[in-house]
């Protein structure tokens, strides 16, 4: 102990062994973290590894139990069962329809509203933005009953459009703020130039401003697509009376309730539900992570 203390205090030329050792320690120290991080992360993603492995195991192999992650015999039977018998093929189509509808509604409404609110001289602008921010954290549990009743009164219940509207409405706040911030940052000269060239409000928006806002469109699309794909509460409530319209999450819930022992089938169904969205995320993760980070910083 005391010797190392001594060495540390002596200047480098006299005792090169000291700083050298310290350097090595500094180089080694970040590497030591891998000893903790690798097992931790493997354990973290274990449920996914199990899910994929179980989806390819035969039902009899699953019954025997055991911890092996590599199936003795690879089989696609589970996927066939989940896709047709448990109707996950239909549910996938429903989920894609639902998610795309939500994204389109959110994009159109929030881009238009964001553009309108980006004009600093708009009367009532501050009040509107204030209301938006104040209601950002309204939980679904609090609002779901009136939303359900409203959609029923509109005659849209038991249809995916009603569910998409209910999903999109409360999700508008962050996209509106993102579009507003983006459009506010574009120099007014550009709009003035468009106006001089004879473009009206609509043409300026659709031909000039909207094409410029591609980065925001990308972020909003991705964030809302993933949220809509993974949503459960709203689709559950709106498809209670109509099993044909179930989304993947709701389908999984019912599958678990009815065939709770068909583990390999459920693993396959879980793969069908999660792998597409994970692939989408992996390709576009930078946009996604930056979108979240940007939202927090604001």
């Amino acid at each position, binding site marked *: 102990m005391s010797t190392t203390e001594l060495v540390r205090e002596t200047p480098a030329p006299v005792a090169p062994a000291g700083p050298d050792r310290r350097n090595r320690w500094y180089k080694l120290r970040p590497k030591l973290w891998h000893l903790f991080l690798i097992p931790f992360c493997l354990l973290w993603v274990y449920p996914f590894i199990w899910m994929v492995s179980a989806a390819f195991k035969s039902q009899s192999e699953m019954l025997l139990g055991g911890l092996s992650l590599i199936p003795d015999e690879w089989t696609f039977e589970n996927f066939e069962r989940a896709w047709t018998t448990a109707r996950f093929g239909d549910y996938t189509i429903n989920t894609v329809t639902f998610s795309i509808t939500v994204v389109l509604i959110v994009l159109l409404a929030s881009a238009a509203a964001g553009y309108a609110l980006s004009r600093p001289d708009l009367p009532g602008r501050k009040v509107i933005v204030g209301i938006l921010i104040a209601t950002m954290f309204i939980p679904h549990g609090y609002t*779901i009953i009136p939303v359900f009743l409203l959609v029923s009164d509109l005659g849209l219940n038991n249809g995916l459009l009603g569910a998409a509207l209910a999903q999109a409405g409360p999700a508008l706040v962050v996209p509106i703020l993102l579009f507003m911030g983006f459009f506010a940052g574009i120099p007014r000269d550009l709009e003035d130039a468009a106006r001089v060239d004879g473009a009206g409000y609509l043409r300026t928006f659709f031909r000039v401003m909207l094409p410029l806002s591609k980065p925001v469109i990308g972020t909003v699309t991705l964030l809302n697509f993933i949220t809509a794909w993974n949503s459960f509460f709203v689709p559950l409530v709106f498809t209670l009376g109509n099993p044909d319209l179930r989304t993947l*999450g709701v389908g999984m819930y019912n599958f678990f309730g009815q065939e709770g022992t068909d583990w390999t089938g459920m693993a396959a169904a879980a793969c069908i539900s999660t792998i597409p969205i994970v692939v989408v995320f992996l390709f576009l993760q930078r946009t996604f992570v930056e979108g979240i980070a940007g939202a927090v910083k604001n």
Partner: protein
Amino acid sequence: MASTYAAARRPRAAGRWRRHAWSYAFLVPAALLFGGFSIWPMIASWWYSFFDWDGVGSPTDWVGLDNFREVLGSGDFWDAFWHSFLFSLAALVIELPLALVLAILLNNALLRGRNVYRLALFLPVVTTTAVVGIVFAILFDPVRGVVNTALSDLGLIDSSINFLGSTSTALPTLIGIDIWKGFGITLIYWLAALQTIPKDIHEAALIDGASSRQSLRFVVLPMLIPLAIVILLLVFQRSLNTFDLVQATTQGGPNYATDVVPTYIYRFAFDPFLQAPRYGFACAAGVVFGVMTLLITLLQAPVLRRQYKAGATT
């Protein structure tokens, strides 16, 4: 100031509104959606909660405060509220600091493969809660579940644990899964917060003779406080509204041991086994929950504001 503003505004008001007609037209779709599905439900919840109503026809059976009396007097409701609160508390006490530690680790540019780690930890966030919840229910199965098999193979337990089926373990298990699910997003919040701190400041502290740990403790962490408060509120809100996970796995059982407020509301309004929905009562429960959430947030506010100021001045 106010009077001159009003005077200047009055004669031109009509012209100003007309000049912005297109802007207001552009606000209409968002206003309809947001008004219909966010603002209106908040008001309607209050209104409906004064009725005894099964959803058939318009609400006519005015019962005054009876629904609120029943909610406030219901042990089941307060149990559900307590469970919701525990989800939040656990997220704040366990997830928030743990995610910060890992964010600091992964923020180190010298660490190889940090993007892979970040990706692994973030993966649960992009998956459907209801689906991975069910996968966990299978992993935690008392008879053939992987967790029980592994624990008994290692000799850590003699008899299998019914993680989600016994009243004593179900709630902690679900809270654990909830933390697993939300951890990645909290990590990204922290990483974003850490990125806002200029590298020079940390380096300047090191040059001034502070150790890496000292710089972290006395320079970096205090600078994080303003954003930390935002993150804290986001995490608190998320866990307080846990529904998907509980509904998909235990539906609040066994014996209401994992019941949370959203599942409680769901049971009285939408449960298919219900004879007649009790929308008025369920709305009252929602209103009480909303008000309590607001109160808890407001109670935190003075403490947080003091911290915020402390953080802003250092």
